[in-house]
């Protein structure tokens, strides 16, 4: 069964990142499988309106500017008219929101459910429970997930976290991992320095990514092995700490700080290394280590979040989040490298190419879409009842918001009736005509 899917998120091209590329790649693979996919996001500077990306992927850059952390201001009701319009014009039957940080995604899912359109939510990150911002965000997530038909998480740990935060039934959450475009991340042996063992680090230099651990690991490893050098890509507030370490231990010729590395240049940096070091303190999936494995590097990483689930033991050395444990694991990896006991770069690349593919992700996502399309529709009363379960006081507030949204929808239906909305042209028909060799100019 072919669906009309609307991907919604605050994070999309021209921004580069994990969520952005996830949405883009998944959309492309779903289009290949014959579905109709559009993307809805906010305006990026002057980029506002409708743009087309490759394969006819239509992107709606809504004329709303981001206010904080690249997200729009959450107003709940003001996005209803425009989202309703888009969903009706494009005859969407599934709305797929990405990232719990995205206000636009959560609001669009809410409006979709008010309009009885099926909704799916993909969670890309792990959250805590104890501090004030987490408590508020989790309440909002409970609200969003109370209405959603199905949720997707990128790892099993992420699923456990989402189930606890959002208080949803675990069988309503599917685990579909991220993937990499293995054709971009190919290994090559010519870039590597054969005399030395190169350790590559590619992450933002912030506390969360374990920059402090990195600063304590580097001098220890450099003193133990004289032929090891570090290449560190990425920038951030902790860069100073790394530079201080470099100064203090006089390691100028053994540590190279590259600063921010553009996305297209990442592969060039990765192929110069033998070992990839990841010191994050929390990660839901960690695409970086899969990219590194695809380029043929051996991975050494802290065992946090979903990282232990991603790569098999012969491709990754896991360590506790402490300097001594990381140094031990790095020693093991370096020893393996010296004795040529590591998996060959081509072997690693082939493994990644076969295991983590976007086609696989699209296939499994399609199963989710089919399942929710076949499910019976939930009545308004049932929905309000589910919102009520979110909390003693919060439940009543959520019911009020949901009911008000429903009334606003009726108002919108009265002001601009469904019959008067023009349906957009389906790009799939144009593609089919094109591929079947019909001359479009003659047919019009």
């Amino acid at each position, binding site marked *: 069964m072919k669906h009309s899917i609307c991907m919604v998120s605050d994070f999309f091209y021209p921004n580069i990142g994990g969520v952005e590329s996830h949405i883009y790649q998944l959309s492309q693979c779903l289009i290949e499988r014959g579905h109709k996919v559009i993307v809805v996001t906010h305006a990026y500077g002057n980029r506002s309106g409708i743009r087309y990306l490759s394969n006819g992927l239509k992107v709606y850059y809504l004329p709303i500017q981001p206010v904080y952390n690249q997200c729009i201001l959450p107003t709940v009701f003001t996005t209803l008219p425009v989202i309703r319009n888009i969903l009706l014009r494009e005859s969407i039957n599934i709305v797929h929101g990405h990232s719990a940080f995205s206000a636009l995604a959560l609001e669009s899912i809410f409006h979709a459910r008010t309009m009885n359109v099926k909704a799916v939510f993909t969670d890309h990150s*792990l*959250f*805590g*429970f*104890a501090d004030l911002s987490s408590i508020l965000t989790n309440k909002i997530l409970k609200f969003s997930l109370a209405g959603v038909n*199905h949720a997707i998480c990128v*790892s*099993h*740990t*992420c699923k*456990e*976290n989402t*189930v*606890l935060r959002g208080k949803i039934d*675990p*069988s*309503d*959450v*599917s*685990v*579909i*991992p991220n993937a990499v475009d293995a054709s971009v991340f190919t290994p090559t042996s010519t870039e590597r320095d054969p005399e030395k063992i190169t350790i590559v680090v590619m992450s933002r230099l912030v506390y*969360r990514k*374990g920059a*402090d*651990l990195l600063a304590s690991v580097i001098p220890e490893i450099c003193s133990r092995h004289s032929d090891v050098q570090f290449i560190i890509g990425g920038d951030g507030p902790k860069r100073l700490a790394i530079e201080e370490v470099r100064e203090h231990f006089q390691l100028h010729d053994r540590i190279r700080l590259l600063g921010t590395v553009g996305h297209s240049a990442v592969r060039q940096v990765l192929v110069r290394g033998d070992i990839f070091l990841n010191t994050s*303190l*929390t990660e839901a999936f960690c695409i970086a280590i899969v990219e590194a494995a695809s380029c043929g590097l051996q991975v050494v990483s*802290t065992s*946090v*979040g*979903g990282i*232990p*689930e*991603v*790569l*098999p033991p012969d491709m990754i050395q896991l360590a*506790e*989040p*402490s*300097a001594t*444990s990381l140094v031990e694991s790095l020693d093991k990896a370096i020893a393996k490298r010296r004795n040529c006991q590591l998996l060959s770069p081509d072997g690693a690349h082939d493994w990644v190419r076969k*295991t*983590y593919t976007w086609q696989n992700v699209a296939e*499994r996502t399609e*199963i*989710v879409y089919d399942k929710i399309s076949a499910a019976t529709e939930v009545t308004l009363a049932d929905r309000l009842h589910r919102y009520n379960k979110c909390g003693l006081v919060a439940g009543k507030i959520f019911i009020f918001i949901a009911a008000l949204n429903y009334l606003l929808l009726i108002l919108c239906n009265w002001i601009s009736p469904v019959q008067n909305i023009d349906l957009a042209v389906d790009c799939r028909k144009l593609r089919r005509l094109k591929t079947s060799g019909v001359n479009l100019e003659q047919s019009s």
Partner: protein
Amino acid sequence: MAMSCDRSRKKWQKVLYKDQGVSDNYVDESFLEEMKKNLHIRTYEFWAVVRESNVVMQQIYSVWIFVAVYFHMRNFVLTPQFLFEMSSAVTIVGYIVNFVILHENALTKSRWKDGKTMGIFLILGFSLSPILMTLTKTISTDTIYAMTFFMLLANLLFHDYGTDAAIVSQAFSLNAAIFASICLASRLPTTWHAFSLVTFAFELFALWPILRRNLKIHFPRLQIILSFLLGSVVTVSVATVSSVAVVVFLLLHLFITILCPAWLIRLQPYKNNIHGPWDEAVIKQ
């Protein structure tokens, strides 16, 4: 048939790179196995909490003493000379006690610095007192009292009681108290009154907490005796101003010292701290 039975008996692994023959929303029995609840919970003992609550009470005593002193000066029971002399004497005694407790070397330099600061403050305070008098002359007394109330409340809220919370801001707390003292000082008849009240406020809200903290570190057992002493001083001084106020004070005292600890202990079983592999890792040394 036998093959499929074998596969289902194989233990499900929490990995993403293997196709384990189950659907994506499969929930294994090991789901949430690594979740731990209430790992670092502290059990509280009632009288220990009551004893610790006196930290809050001592700051409240300061506030009540200050307001009582103001009212005494208003009613001409307390003369500014007496207040200034008494508070200066107590401050000097307190300074010596602090000096002795901290076993500081008799570095004449820091004594000289402290002396200089005190001199500058006294001169500045005395020369600015006439301005303080007329600063809030046009504002009605009710507004002044309301502002004083909120400022002293802010002082209590933001005071550093020894915890690491985000709400603590010693600077804000002190500023609020001094602002309250300036509000009240403007209602007094002469410059001398205003100067003595503001000086007293500085000594009470800026210097006294420092001595209190050092006393607590070095002589923890003295805290109860200190609280009793201060409590009686407050009760007596407030009683002579207004009997309603003293009843309110005693009720407040009861609430904070007895009721709040009991409430805290009653709520402890409802604690629900969740820990698991999704937590941000704490770097182990």
